[in-house]
């Protein structure tokens, strides 16, 4: 018992250290975003919201924020729709080359982002679609659809395979069954996927930077500001982006968790 307690203590410290390691830079960035001094040095200056005021007054940042919002919302919808369709086709049908089909679908996240971004740029300019806001949306949808599919597939695997047949048996056509059984059953996973893909898209830099042209998203404008000079505005934007992403991820997790709870009760 005693041994266990000391082990727990050590493990607790270990977990704390990991969290510190992961979040320390972000926390520093947050702290400096409220620091009156231009350079991130210790000791700190006074508390100030100067940088936030500056960010809010900058029309470029507003435009980037709007772009980011449009891109992440559209990406979430498209990626989740695609993910749902692939997950359902995997659940429902058996066909030849199903293994390679699934492997191909899950491939995009394994390609290094920079390669992916370059390839996207080359391809989009070839077909005359580069430099548009929708270019980012398409690229992000490709990038995040596998996550959507993975989340929804997990949920479908928890479904009693008789459920669909039971709906047909009670007079539901295939479309009615999709609408009244499959989608409601997957609802928590669908929400989870929407938030997760939105978060990934909101954060994503490399692909956005390559294919965006003049339509900058928030991560892209951060780089632009940093390239020019040292400006604590970056910290302010960073804090904002971090909070949005964290909120989305936490929401995704909440839906994921509620789904696990439900499946235990079933």
């Amino acid at each position, binding site marked *: 018992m005693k041994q266990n307690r000391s082990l727990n203590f050590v493990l607790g410290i270990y977990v704390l250290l990991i969290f510190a390691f992961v979040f320390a830079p972000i926390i520093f960035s947050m702290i400096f975003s409220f620091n009156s001094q231009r350079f991130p040095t210790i000791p700190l200056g006074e508390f100030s919201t100067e940088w936030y005021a500056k960010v809010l007054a900058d029309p470029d940042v507003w435009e980037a924020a709007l772009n980011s919002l449009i891109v992440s919302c559209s990406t979430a919808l498209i990626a989740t729709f695609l993910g749902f369709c692939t997950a359902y086709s995997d659940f429902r049908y058996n066909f030849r080359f199903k293994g390679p089909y699934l492997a191909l679908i899950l491939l995009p996240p394994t390609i290094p982002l920079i390669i992916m971004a370059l390839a996207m740029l080359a391809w989009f300019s070839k077909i005359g679609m580069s430099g548009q806001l929708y270019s980012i949306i398409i690229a992000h949808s490709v990038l995040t659809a596998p996550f959507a599919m993975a989340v929804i597939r997990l949920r479908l695997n928890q479904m*009693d395979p*008789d*459920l669909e*047949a*039971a*709906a*047909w*048996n*009670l*007079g*539901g*056509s*295939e479309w*009615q*069954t999709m609408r*009244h*059984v499959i989608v*409601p*059953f997957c*609802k928590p996973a669908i929400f989870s996927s929407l938030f997760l893909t939105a978060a990934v898209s909101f954060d994503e830099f490399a692909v956005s930077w390559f294919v965006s042209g003049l339509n900058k998203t928030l991560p892209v404008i951060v780089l632009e500001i940093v390239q020019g000079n040292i400006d604590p505005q970056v910290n302010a934007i960073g804090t904002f982006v971090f909070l949005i992403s964290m909120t989305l991820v936490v929401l995704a997790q909440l839906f994921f968790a509620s789904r696990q709870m*439900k499946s235990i*009760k*079933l």
Partner: protein
Amino acid sequence: MSKPLVVFDKVQKHFGSFVAVKELDFEIREGEFLAIMGPSGCGKTTTLRMLAGLEAPSIGEIRLNDRVMNDVAPHERDTPLVWQSLALFPFLTARENVEFGLKMRGVDKAERKERALKWLDKMGILEFENRHISTLSGGQKQRVALARSLVMEPQILLLDEPLSALDAHLVIRMQAVLTDLQRELGITFVYVTHSQSEAFAMADRVIIMGKGEIAQIGTPKDIYRAPANQFVAEFVGRNNILSGKVASVDGNTARITTASGDFTVPTNEVLLIEGHKASFVISADLVHITLEEPEAGNKAYCKLISEEFVGSMVTLFLEDAQGHEFKVQMQERELSKIDPHSGDEIWLSWDTQSAHVLNEG
């Protein structure tokens, strides 16, 4: 005899090279309680799924009310199924589950609710109307599943081992619920099970299936007392099976020589030929035991191996000198008059008319 509601006309079902159903040729009568029973993998569930349209026959025809059903989609049939897994919709309440089929058929909201409530009431679970499925007990879920199918007011209800997940005492209660319902509604029930006690307790007729074929169709009593063949006799279980050669045939009786001795059996219109192989069964509850050797008739001298009590009934497991196993079933109070112990040697005997000759082997 009432007219057939469903006809299986030389139906076969293949899955690739695997033959799930070899040949089915039978009728389901209007208003009967038909049980399809067999060991797992015998094709009984496939048969039911073909009736519900979830599988299409590979060869042959299934007709419902004289209409060929082979290519009718499941949702265009009126053959609700009660699933072994129940397959209730976990994201809906009890009432919403019952309303589901009506909703699919486009019944308006007010009528849906009224009919669902009527059936929940009939099944005695009205108070759970707004409860989610996950919060209901096994027996309550079972009743929701039944209500969900019956609210469609079908001519025929299909049941796929619906009681297999319930506790023993609930099974007996649900059996009574099912038989009462069937009698009251007068609709046809087709009940698939591997449980002999469920099938025999509820069904008007039983189909015994083995390896994708029908082994016997008959009333529970027919099947129990007069199994058609060795497969049925073994499946029914509470039988003593003896195999040997026909020694002589004399009018309505025959003499069969087995390793355990010579026995007289009624021929029961089975063609027995001297010198050919023959088997017969005696139900375990038709065998008597005595300490002294019976004067004449069919008898076997056995050693008691073990006893099994189920309530007031006892099953004795015995073995003769050749190692052939015998089973005897009797009331406990009858047994206590003789009170044998394991290892004791006792005499078994039975009336000639109790024996039943099997059709094959």
